[in-house]
């Protein structure tokens, strides 16, 4: 006999947690769409954002409403720095080189965090409301619920920005055809910077949420592995794919964790990944590129 109420509760938690994956995946997809760079350091950028927030909110004891914008700005600066020093010099190099640079970047960020803040686990100051949330009969942990709400708000904001803001339109134009974007006068290198800045900012926001749910540590970057699975499943260049893939992977992880045991979580996501790659190698919503000689 299956316990439907339990299943509903688990699924709800999974989907709500998946909202975070969607947000982080969005950060990844923006960079990929605009610059064709697979940023494997997305988890580490998230971690850097969370630690920046920790510095502002806990060490400098700034109020939350000041600490969050400061973190977002600081992360944007970090994104710009990364783009200028590591990604820009490799324009036109084979994708694997750029990919490896982001691998190195991840390593550098982890090392820096350990040097500055040590490898110990830390807790972020509590700022999410703590009343339990009941949806029907199902209980939802308040942090996860509010995390999901913030994620949804930010996703909506990002989508609106890319729909209506000049810079967002320039970014979408560059993504769809680089040469054409150049010829209508879009400053493509600046768009590249913009994509990295935005991506770092979004990553920082999701880092703050992830950190306030589960605490922060220098191994937080593991979250990025699940994000990679999300974007591969959804399709590297698809915003819709990132959103749906995030919810889907969140659901799969929650179900595997509840019914099979915690050690099955990553296994389940990676089996989903392999299955999707075998059926649709370019992801569920990704563009199927046709190669020509």
């Amino acid at each position, binding site marked *: 006999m299956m316990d439907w109420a339990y299943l509903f509760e688990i699924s709800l938690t999974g989907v709500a947690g998946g909202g975070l994956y969607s947000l982080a995946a969005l950060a990844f997809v923006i960079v990929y769409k605009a610059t064709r760079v697979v940023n494997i350091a997305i988890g580490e950028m998230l971690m850097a954002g969370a630690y920046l927030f920790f510095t502002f909110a806990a060490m400098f004891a700034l109020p939350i409403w000041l600490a969050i914008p400061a973190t977002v700005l600081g992360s944007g600066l970090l994104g710009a720095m990364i783009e200028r020093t590591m990604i820009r010099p490799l324009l036109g190099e084979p994708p694997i080189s750029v990919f490896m*640079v982001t691998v190195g970047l991840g390593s550098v960020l982890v090392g820096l965090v*350990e040097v500055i803040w040590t490898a110990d686990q830390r807790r972020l100051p509590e700022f999410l409301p703590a009343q339990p949330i009941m949806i029907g009969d199902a209980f939802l942990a308040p942090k996860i619920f509010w995390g999901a709400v913030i994620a949804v708000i930010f996703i909506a904001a990002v989508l609106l920005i890319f729909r209506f803001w000049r810079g967002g339109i320039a970014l979408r134009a560059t993504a769809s055809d680089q040469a054409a974007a150049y010829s209508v006068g879009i400053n493509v290198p600046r768009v590249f910077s913009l994509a990295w800045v935005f991506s770092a900012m979004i990553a920082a926001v999701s880092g703050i949420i992830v950190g306030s749910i589960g605490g922060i540590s220098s191994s937080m970057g593991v979250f990025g592995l699940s994000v990679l699975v999300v974007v*591969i499943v959804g399709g590297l260049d698809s915003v819709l794919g990132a959103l749906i893939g995030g919810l889907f992977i969140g659901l799969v992880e929650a179900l595997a964790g509840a019914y099979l045991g915690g*050690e099955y979580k990553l*296994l389940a996501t*990676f089996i989903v990944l392999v299955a999707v790659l*075998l059926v649709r190698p370019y992801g569920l919503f990704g563009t199927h590129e046709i*190669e020509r000689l």
Partner: protein
Amino acid sequence: MRIGTLKETYVADAALFDSRTQKIWLVVAGALLVLFPFVASDYWLYLACLVSINVASATGLNILTGYTGLVSLGQAAFMGLGAYTVATMESTMGTPFALNLLCGGVVAMIGGLVVGIPSLRVKGLYLAIATIAASFITHFLFANLSFTGGTGGLSIQPASWFGLPLDTSFRIYWLIVPVTLLMLLGAANLFRTRIGRAFIAIRDRDISAEVLGIPLLRYKLLSFGLSSFYAGVAGGLWAYFFRVVTPESFPLLMSIFFLAAIIVGGMGTILGGVLGAVFMTMVPELLKFVFDLIPGGAGLTVFLSPVRTIIFGLLIIGFLVFEPHGLAEIWRRVRRYFHLWPFRN
């Protein structure tokens, strides 16, 4: 192009070692490798064995990534397959080590073939991330199968050579280094054959290669198989060297290490794989020396591990930005400079 080496036949042109200088240096290097264990301390012998294992595995990855152009982040998983095979065979059946190593290689090769199947449809970085899946699935298997000893892993007896247990760094050196040299020679020769040329053609443009009549699936799988065979044998050596294997012995970070090694060394050259593996293994040790030299370094030792992580990342970034062809290219420049030395270069 080297000056002063006239070649009159194709055989001479395709020869692995083409000049007298090269042969002399090889003899010198060989002699040094033979003499090394008699003069070096235990610590240096330990390092030499570790370097040698890493060279073997990095060369395997170089076949796949450097020569065939298929990026893989699963090399450590295949090493794990080899290591577990060797550990299981050694402790349950007690078969001779040569057979165990071979079986370790073959099991890893089968694993590699399975992982390689999607490589026909999945390309580039999608493939790289698919191979991460392999590394998580093998980790799960090692931790949960009945005969792999769970999270505690397996500990194994030292390899024995006619009743002599190879239980010290000095003794196992004579197993590890020759096996690695043999594998290096094999890899170097591979790229003088039809198969190796096919790999290179696939790397340069796989669709063109197929148009030229190279069956893509067969050669991509072959490349995966060969590469993971190397990883499996290296993993087997690793098992004999550390004599305990656990699921945590072969993390994703190790796969990244090997990819970093061939990038730093120079992709697509045998020498690059060797130089990269030596360099990347030695840098953390050098860093330890530097930390020991700093006065009052006792309080700084907590920073050793994070600084290693940073240096590791900076090396990858630095080489990709400033020297994309790696150490092998630097070596070539140095060699060219000395070729006509002391005349103008």
